[in-house]
């Protein structure tokens, strides 16, 4: 029987199977950010040990960094956390992309764009959206801080092998439908726990025709259906994206690497524990209405009614709508919004800014909307400027901010005030995610752009 892509990469990294226990898996790349690493470094200090393979570790602050200026972090607690990361990296000899440097940005944007994440690797980070990096054809998993310490100390983690699932998307996407819509559609079909216990491989013609940026968006959201990892077999799109980037192999090494990477695909006779297929033509621009990413609808649909729900389901459904201040059966298209956010590790890449600009070009931002446009990295920001996109945004009344996780998670000054409704390209619409009491609709850069112009939830195909 053939092997899946996940099995191939996993098997190549097994140090040993612990007796009656998990697998000891070798890790090629650990990314560390300021939030989930300080206690891990403390553990090393407690034990008096060094980082086992410091050259495998890359660190950068992203969660606490402000997006309006990066001279200083005014919040003393956040500032201390960012300074602690810098100190820890200096003490343990780890490469550190400090706040404000041209190398800095959101880890899940920076890793792939610098080719620090490569096909066939095992990649971990104390961050659930580490699944993003799987789009280059790697096993990439979010871990906890104890596991960050384990990797720092030994370059290994102890994990049980997940089951495998293949999600196929076949066909051509309609105009106005992008990778984010595909992801939100899949989340709604699979539900928020539908892939718990699995590693998901995305395949099918829609994925093959998707850009690298789109694939990164799709893999990013894997965790929102509970999947441990989301990966896509590397192909010409992957190689073209990685070639020439800062840490990509060069010259002969590149050719050798590509030859190896071409073997990284599921065998024709590989059997997955579960396989699901969706049709691209069924997917429309999407929005969420509830407080988990699976609670979504097509933009022209109404919020579900209570029909067919049992009492317990009704209670939880109504609790979500109560928080969101929506009604069962309500249509959200045309509903006023207060904030719009373009950015995050989900949609903070150049293609997302191009898409946003394509909608707002020659139009004006609605004066009632506060807009935060936050590139995922300094490289992305530079490319926006090089392509003249910043001018388009400026003429439409938008301001380009500085790289940061920004309004995705309320750990820096970009917080949505209580009760306000934001339409966001980020990844989570949880209660309080964008600030205590803040309400979030998740959508694609196109939907967010169209809504920023009109001031109401807007279908980008109609503007």
């Amino acid at each position, binding site marked *: 029987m053939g092997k899946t892509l996940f099995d191939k990469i996993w098997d190549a990294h097994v*140090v*040993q199977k*612990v*007796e*009656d*226990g*998990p697998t*000891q898996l*070798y890790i090629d790349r650990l990314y560390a950010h300021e*939030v*989930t690493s*300080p*206690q891990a470094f*403390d*553990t090393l200090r407690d*034990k008096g040990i060094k980082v*086992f393979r410091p050259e495998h570790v890359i660190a950068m602050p992203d969660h*606490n960094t402000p997006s309006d200026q990066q001279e200083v972090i005014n919040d003393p*607690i956040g500032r*201390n*956390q960012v300074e*602690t990361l810098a100190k820890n990296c200096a003490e343990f000899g780890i490469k550190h992309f400090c706040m404000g440097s041209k190398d800095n940005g959101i880890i899940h944007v920076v890793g792939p764009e610098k080719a620090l994440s490569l096909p066939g690797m095992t990649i971990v980070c*104390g*961050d*659930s959206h580490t699944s993003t990096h799987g789009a280059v054809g790697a096993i990439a*998993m*979010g*871990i*906890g*801080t*104890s*596991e960050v*310490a*384990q990797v720092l*100390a*030994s*370059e*290994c983690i*102890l*994990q*049980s092998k*997940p089951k495998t699932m293949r999600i196929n998307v076949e066909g051509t996407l309609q105009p106005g439908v992008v990778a984010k819509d595909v992801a939100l559609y899949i989340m709604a079909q699979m539900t*928020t*726990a539908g892939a*718990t*216990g699995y590693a998901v491989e995305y395949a099918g013609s829609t994925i093959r025709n998707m850009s690298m940026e789109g694939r990164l968006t799709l893999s990013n959201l894997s965790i929102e259906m*509970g999947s441990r990892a989301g990966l896509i077999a590397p192909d010409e799109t992957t190689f073209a994206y990685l070639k020439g980037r800062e840490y990509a192999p060069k010259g002969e090494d590149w050719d050798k690497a590509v030859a190896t990477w071409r073997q990284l695909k599921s065998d024709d006779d590989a059997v997955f524990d579960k396989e699901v297929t969706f049709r691209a033509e069924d997917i429309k621009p999407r929005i969420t209405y509830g407080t*988990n990413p699976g609670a979504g609808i097509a933009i022209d649909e109404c919020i579900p009614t209570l029909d067919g729900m049992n009492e317990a389901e009704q209670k*939880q459904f109504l609790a979500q709508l109560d928080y969101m201040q929506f009604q069962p059966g309500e249509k959200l298209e045309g509903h006023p919004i207060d904030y719009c956010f373009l950015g995050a590790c989900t949609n903070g890449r150049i293609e997302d800014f191009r898409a946003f600009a394509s909608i707002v070009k020659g139009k004006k931002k609605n004066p009632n909307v506060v807009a935060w446009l936050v590139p995922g990295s300094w490289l992305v920001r530079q490319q926006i400027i090089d392509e003249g996109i910043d001018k388009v945004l400026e003429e439409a009344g938008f301001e380009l901010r500085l790289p940061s996780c920004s309004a995705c*998670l*309320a*750990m820096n000054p970009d917080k949505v005030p*209580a009760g306000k409704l934001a339409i966001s390209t980020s990844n*989570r619409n*949880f*209660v*309080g*995610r964008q600030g*205590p*009491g803040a309400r979030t609709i998740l959508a694609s850069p196109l939907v967010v752009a169209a809504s920023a112009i009109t001031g109401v939830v807007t279908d980008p195909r109609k503007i």
Partner: protein
Amino acid sequence: MAHQKFNIIKSTCIPIQIDNCNTDLIIPARYLASTSRDPKFFGDAFMRDLRFNAKGEPIADFVLNQPAFCEAPHKGCHEIIVGGQNWGSGSSREHAAWAISGYGVRVVISSSFADIHRNNLLNCFVLPVIVSEAFQQELFASIAKDANTVVTVDLPNQTVTNEATGHCEKFDINGYKKYCLMNGYDDIDYLLSQTGKIEAFENKK
């Protein structure tokens, strides 16, 4: 952090009947900027925005503020959470496990857990116990009827018993992790003892 060895826990429970209870709810992001390892700091932040309003006043109808469940966990009392399905989804923040542990809870029972959070709980010596939905629902019903319902979690025998009904289920845990929990051993100590194998793997690669 020092680890309490695990054996048999016999305790009343806190019912948190929220499905898909994500780690943002278990601990809001603003508590993540701390570099502290103080269990009390994280325990105080446990379910903060469900327990307290913006003014810091207790929200009376949330379970942790109800007279029957507000007593802080201690031996035999409220050491077990019975949670909704897909407990701990979302963010990988281990701070959520620190909050649960810091609050004084030693066991979380649910019909399903998010993978990363489940690992985090184990690494913090909080035992995640997966039971059938029927067992979980019966447990919620028993607690609703009598808040003093006692549950026994027997790690050596891998059983969980609802003492109100006498119903008992086996639960899964691998032998390695069970040994770690019962003896207070960390994964990191195990991995540090395997350096020879790791270097051999690197040389082969």
